[in-house]
């Protein structure tokens, strides 16, 4: 093949761009699919799109995770017609909290935490960010904090579930030639 003629760095950069684009597309479709599912309480969702943020974080780095999560919030809201509505701001602040929490903890804990632990932390950050945004933007009353523990309990379950799915996916992807160690390093 002519691969040897291509600059290895440029190749791995464009490969990363292609895969991140794919991850964002999957995340947006998971988000859209999830919004079609019935929920007992509005705004109570599993956050399946977070699987792709976790995969980007584990396969690449924090910047990749930011790209996936922010693009997912923006494109997802655009697609569902919720952009700049009150729900959008809640989702955005929740995602900012979740992604920062996951990246910071991942940087310090490294391999001592599996995607399940990182996802549980992200889910907790998401709940905290959403309630904070709701407190400031929607319900200007301190009583909203009483919802937090109930929200936290549900979100913990959701976080472990999405973390588990991400761990299963990562196991498959790591065996793929595009992500194996020899392929990721210099040619």
């Amino acid at each position: 093949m002519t691969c040897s003629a291509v600059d290895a760095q440029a190749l791995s950069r464009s490969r990363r761009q292609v895969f991140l684009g794919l991850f964002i597309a999957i995340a947006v479709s998971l988000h859209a699919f999830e919004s079609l599912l019935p929920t007992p309480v509005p705004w109570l969702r599993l956050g399946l799109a977070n699987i792709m943020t976790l995969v980007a974080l584990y396969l690449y780095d924090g910047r990749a995770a930011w790209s996936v999560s922010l693009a997912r919030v923006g494109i997802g809201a655009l697609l569902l017609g919720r952009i700049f509505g009150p729900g959008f701001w809640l989702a955005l602040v929740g995602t900012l909290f979740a992604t920062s929490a996951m990246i910071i903890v991942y940087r310090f804990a490294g391999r001592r935490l599996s995607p399940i632990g990182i996802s549980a932390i992200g889910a907790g950050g998401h709940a905290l960010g959403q309630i904070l945004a709701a407190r400031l933007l929607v319900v200007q009353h301190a009583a909203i904090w009483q919802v937090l523990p109930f929200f936290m309990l549900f979100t913990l379950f959701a976080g472990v579930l999405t973390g588990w799915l991400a761990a299963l996916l990562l196991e498959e992807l790591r065996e793929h030639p595009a992500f194996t160690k020899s392929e990721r390093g210099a040619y």
Partner: protein
Amino acid sequence: MKAPWHFMTGGDWLVVLLLLTSSLGGIISIAAMSEGSRVLITCGDELCFTAPLDQPRTLAIDGPLGQTKLVIDERGARIVESPCPRKICVSMGVAKHTGDLLACVPNRILVHIDGSSGKEVSYDLLSR
């Protein structure tokens, strides 16, 4: 398919356990916080009796139809006997949290649980 615990490290268990205990602790403390401390009884249009919720007692309240019996014990306040035809107030069960209400409309008796220091939580904004 591998189970979640196949992937979970010691750190993961710690994170999950910490989040679980903190949210359960929060739920328990909220439940404890909302426990009322005072029973207010309204007969007709005016307040006719106030009693602390933590002292067990039995009260007989007079209304237009006769006597309604109210019991306060460690479970909370409840109406055990009433002359009203449908006994809805008896079937309303126990009231113990701030804002709980027992009403015997035919006998014009209203039992209302209150917080002690006016720290009553208002849900008006949430239900709007």
